[in-house]
């Protein structure tokens, strides 16, 4: 200690070094803090600065549970916010930010909020400091705060004290002498930052603002006004940051664009800087424009962009396509106005050299895949015009769709014009025509958006069973058409179509076991396709992956696997084609999991793929069915992976590539499908009428069970679970119960052993079936169920309570 007491400059350097490396010492942290705090009062600014830096460093590697200690460090840092030296104040801002963070972390609920606001306002009070670097640091620190009251946030955009913050004060300092911190110290803080002289400060303020718009929608809607004005900033970096912030707000659904904003915003589409124009387009495509006038302004600006900067063409087409897709209802009226421009001239030549015309075509062809429900007519010949410009258009839409699919899509749309003379576009969704019969499943373009199954032939069919089955079959056959839309990324459309089919099918009720089976199968299948579609679109657009995270993907794939397993084991009478179909989707799911989920177990997944694919091969051989491209690719790939020393990791991109060859085959229901189902009930039991039990002793529960289509060799289990514990299984030996395979109804008193030490509890009960696939050997003496279980009914809740004496 003595050596550092002299003011010799060498020693001073030594001391700075010492303090800079404070966290590396093996000194009791409390002692270290004491020493550092002592140095924060040093008369030498250098020492005060490094002492504060030391505090900052310690804050990240120390656990302090004593709040008063944290408060001590925090308030010492606050005091030094008013130091005479710029560098000390800068370090003090960092220290306030870091120790403020600790302070917030060690509090709960209301006081946590209060402290978070306190730190926020304290940092806001520094944004008018005269030191530029300090202002940058202060705004950076503001952006790190995750919890701020809306009132305070709104105050940062308003110069006068708002009623909500007028009287509020916090613990802190306004000046060296004033030892309370009024909430009004936050006034205009962000606007000051955004109009700062230095672009470094403006950028930092803009970035932090971006982070905080996620906290409050109200704040975001206020902030957007000034952000739009920032687009007029003279620094490219700042304009870019402003666009990024607006984009972030748009995708987090906190953006409301007014017509007044558009002048400035659309102006950026004509900016001289490529990166600004590109960012502007990127932002525009995620913006929702509320009326036709706004949409028209946007399209006009995009056209101007194309006119002035022809090099942007490809990207512009994509943006126009995406914008058209999200604003389908406006596109119609625009296309009608400009339709003459699109029509061929008298010589039969098309005036297509004009980039504008092609851009309008791109806009027009976005309509059928629009997410909007009400779509105005786009003349179908437009699609044939677009075919001529296929190459040019497809360059732009490369991200969304490849050229082949685009061609198929365009010719599909234009063919309809030949057959039914634009009938196609009167409906909201593609009309589904059946080749053999005149049974027509079509959607009407009414506002209720309900789909109807109508056909004279259908109505005349007396047999309900036949009618239901044929409807289900029609739907299932048509689902493969839907795949094209999924491939285009038009999930909104797909989901709505599937939903309307599902609704239509659910309307049928029937007692016939075959009909029930077919319906159940069709509904399950539709659900699987829906899930698959969601996964597919998520993978198509990397943006979604980034913002929705892997977690969602994992959940979706999990659901798909569960459903597929259910379909495979809970239906009997599936034909080999049907089984093949399901197996192929299973394989797809496995490949998806393997290529996109980091968390997946590589070996297990690979083994599963091998098992399924060999089963597929066998089935194909037996039935003399050709293997699909997807399976062929996959098998080739498995061989390569097996032979290469790189392991699966190196080959993941190959797996991903194999996904490209997948397309959904048409599923044709042929056999008589029966659904394995169970009903489970406990008579007169609810929350008010619990069954009696005595804690610690087993209790018998009388279940009423109905089983459908379950032959006696199926192995069924009752699973009974108390929240938070592992389930108890009771075996149901079907040989013991009367009834036939179609329906078996009986009462069964099941014992439950693990009654908890409470006066009341509820038990979740379900009937599960072991899934016995060919490749799993059956051990008769096996205790408890096989790991793979399929649940046959909805889980019920049984209420139990200790009788009152």
């Amino acid at each position, binding site marked *: 200690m003595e050596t550092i007491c002299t003011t010799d400059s060498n020693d001073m350097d030594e001391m700075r070094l010492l303090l800079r490396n404070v966290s590396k010492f093996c000194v009791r942290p409390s002692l270290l803090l004491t020493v550092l705090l002592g140095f924060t009062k040093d008369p030498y600014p250098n020492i005060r600065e490094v002492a504060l830096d030391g505090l900052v460093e310690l804050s990240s590697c120390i656990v302090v549970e004593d709040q008063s200690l944290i408060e001590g460090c925090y308030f*010492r840092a606050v005091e030094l916010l008013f130091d005479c030296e710029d560098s000390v104040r800068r370090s003090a801002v960092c220290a306030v930010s870091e120790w403020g963070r600790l302070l917030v972390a060690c509090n709960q609920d209301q006081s946590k909020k209060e402290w978070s606001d306190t730190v926020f306002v304290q940092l806001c009070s520094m944004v008018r400091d005269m030191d530029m670097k300090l202002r940058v640091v202060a705004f950076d620190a503001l952006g790190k705060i995750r919890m701020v009251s809306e009132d305070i946030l709104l105050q940062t955009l308003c110069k006068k004290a708002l009623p909500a913050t007028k009287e509020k004060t916090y613990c802190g300092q306004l000046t060296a002498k004033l030892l309370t911190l009024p909430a009004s110290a936050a006034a205009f803080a962000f606007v000051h930052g955004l109009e700062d002289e230095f672009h470094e400060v403006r950028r930092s303020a803009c970035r932090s603002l971006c982070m905080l718009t996620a906290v409050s929608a109200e704040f975001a809607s206020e902030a957007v006004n000034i952000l739009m004005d920032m687009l007029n900033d003279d620094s490219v970096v700042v304009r870019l940051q402003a666009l990024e912030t607006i984009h972030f707000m748009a995708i987090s659904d906190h953006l409301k664009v007014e017509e007044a904003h558009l002048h400035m915003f659309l102006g950026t589409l004509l900016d001289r800087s490529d990166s600004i124009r590109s960012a502007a387009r990127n932002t525009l495509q995620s913006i929702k424009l509320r009326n036709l006038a706004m949409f028209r302004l946007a399209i006009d600006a995009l056209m101007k962009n194309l006119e002035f900067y022809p090099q942007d063409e490809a990207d512009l087409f994509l943006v126009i396509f995406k914008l058209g897709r999200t604003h389908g209802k406006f596109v119609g009226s625009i296309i009608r106005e400009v339709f003459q421009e699109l029509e061929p001239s008298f010589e039969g030549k098309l005036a297509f050299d004009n980039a504008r015309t092609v851009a309008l075509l791109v806009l027009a062809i976005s309509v059928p895949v629009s997410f909007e429900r009400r779509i105005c007519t786009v003349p179908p010949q437009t699609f044939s015009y677009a075919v001529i410009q296929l190459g040019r258009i497809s360059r732009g839409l490369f991200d969304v769709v490849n050229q082949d699919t685009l061609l198929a899509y365009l010719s599909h749309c234009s063919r309809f014009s030949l057959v039914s003379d634009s009938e196609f576009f009167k409906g909201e969704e593609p009309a589904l025509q059946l080749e053999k019969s005149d049974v027509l499943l079509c959607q009407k373009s009414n506002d209720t958006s309900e789909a109807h199954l109508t056909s004279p032939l259908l109505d005349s069919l007396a047999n309900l069973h036949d009618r239901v089955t044929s409807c289900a079959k029609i739907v299932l056959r048509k689902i493969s058409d839907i795949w094209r839309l999924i491939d285009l990324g038009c999930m909104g459309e797909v989901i709505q179509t599937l939903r309307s089919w599902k609704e239509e099918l659910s309307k049928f009720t029937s007692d016939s076991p075959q009909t029930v089976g077919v319906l159940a199968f069709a509904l399950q299948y539709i659900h699987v396709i829906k899930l698959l579609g969601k996964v597919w679109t998520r993978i198509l657009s990397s943006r979604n992956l980034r913002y929705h995270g892997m977690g969602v993907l994992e959940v979706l794939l999990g659901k798909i696997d569960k459903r597929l397993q259910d379909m495979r084991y809970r239906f009997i009478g599936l034909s080999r084609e049907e089984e093949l179909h399901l197996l192929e989707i299973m394989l797809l799911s496995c490949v998806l999991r393997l290529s996109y989920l980091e968390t997946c177990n590589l070996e297990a997944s690979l083994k599963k793929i091998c098992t399924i694919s060999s089963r597929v091969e066998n089935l194909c051989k037996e039935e003399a069915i050709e293997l699909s491209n997807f399976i062929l690719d996959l098998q080739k790939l498995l061989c390569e992976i097996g032979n290469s020393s790189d392991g699966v990791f190196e080959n993941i991109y190959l797996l991903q590539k194999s996904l490209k060859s997948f397309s959904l085959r048409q599923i044709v229901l042929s056999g008589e499908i029966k659904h394995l189902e169970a009903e489970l009930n406990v008579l007169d039991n609810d929350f008010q009428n619990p069954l009696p039990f005595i804690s610690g002793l087993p209790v018998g529960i009388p279940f009423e069970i109905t089983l459908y289509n379950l032959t006696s060799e199926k192995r069924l289990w009752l699973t009974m679970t108390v929240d938070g514990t592992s389930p108890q299984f009771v075996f149901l030996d079907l040989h013991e119960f009367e009834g036939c395979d179609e329906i078996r109804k009986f009462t069964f008193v099941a014992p439950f052993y693990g009654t908890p030490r409470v006066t009341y509890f509820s038990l979740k009960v379900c009937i599960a079936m072991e899934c016995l696939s060919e490749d799993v050997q059956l051990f008769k003496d096996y205790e408890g169920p096989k790991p793979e279980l399929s649940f046959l009914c909805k889980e019920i809740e049984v209420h139990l309570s200790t009788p009152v004496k």
Partner: protein
Amino acid sequence: MAIECLVLGAGQEVGKSCVVVTINDKKIMFDCGMHMGYLDHRRYPDFSLISKSGDFTNSLTCIVVTHFHLDHIGALPYFTEVCGYNGPIYMTYPTKALAPLMLEDYRKVMVDRRGEEEQFSSEQILECMKKVTAVDLKQTVQVDKDLQIRAYYAGHVLGAAMFYARVGDVAIVYTGDYNMTPDRHLGAAQIDRLQLDLVITESTYATTYRDSKYAREREFLKAVHKCVAGGGKVLIPTFALGRAQELCMLLDDYWERMNLKVPIYFSAGLTVQANMYYKMLINWTSQKVKDTYATRNAFDFKHVCSFDRSLINAPGPCVLFATPGMISGGFSLEVFKQWAPYEGNLVTLPGYCVAGTVGHRLMSAKTPAQINIDQDTQIDVRCQIHQLSFSPHTDAKGILDLVKFLSPKHVILVHGEKPKMATLKEKIQSQMGIQCFDPANNETVSIPSTHYVKAVASDALLQSSLSPNLKFIRKCSERGSDFGGLDARTKPGLKVFR
């Protein structure tokens, strides 16, 4: 030791800024302005209050002038050449360069146009300027062995400065006019955190809370863009220095980004000379101008060309900058007469217009309107009118921010309107706990000053490092404990996990 402030001008009013501050036996005159609203003796500060004998050279230690506006410098030639002050005068380099232009311009207007008695001649202006010592920003000037002064950037206009003055342990800051918000061509005021006994600040907008500058810029650009997009002509009457460069940079930048081809004109004489000064004095402009200087001088406007009279009635849209600002005559009036009758055209007006000017009449007019230029001429005004709200002065928030940052012991408000100053004074006292004064002209404010006891560094260091007896100011914890002698044994909640 006390500080005495004699307010000779700009006390509870705007005009003839002049404050004489006495610290010990040093007497500093801050600004020496004239009042544009008076033509009698009231136009100058009452210098007799400084010295009954009229020996100003010996009464004053020095004069400090903050910027070239006439209400801050207009009385200087009179004071030196007529009243005979011969002592040192300090101002920044740009102020020294631009002041003679302003003074000469003023002299011409008074003598040539209004036919008034000459207050000082062109020669006297030059003589006066010879006595000026130019200073640079942040350069500490030792006026004599006791008095130090230092200039800080003030924004406002090219060359404007705040001045710090120190005698012994007593230090003050006189702000002059300043702006806390940067604009396109000038930066925001910039000063160090100093230990101050007194801050004398302007308070032109003592109760105004101005909105974001982006909104002002947007409205201006939108109006101009809309007009030229519709084929109209835009007339922007401005003064030669300041707003013209600001607006021109804004437009030039916008033109560049938006790829606009419509010509922007500067009327001859206006600005060519002024732009030259800006180019020379690049260090006194905003950060952005300085940043881009290496690649391109921001005052080399890309899209601006000089105007020829024959272009007035040329077809097609254009933007024209012309003097004078309030359309009180000259070229801007000539063009106004030609362009005003057409609906598609646009005329912008500065935020403030003197009564009697065409600009002033337009401010309250609703188009279409009939405006009388003189007895014989009446103009049918049908064009659009856009009121500019750019201002080179800080607003109330800016004043409070500066006072908060400097946290002086006392504040004196000058250069404002009486009732508004009273409101601001109340705010400074109640919110900041700082004693504040708003003296009228010719009043003196006496301020006691305290000595700072300077700790000898080594002693204090020794003390703090040998016995770190820490005391925190505990602001809100109810438990309110002292942290002296922290120890891990008594603070078990402390763990290091690295």
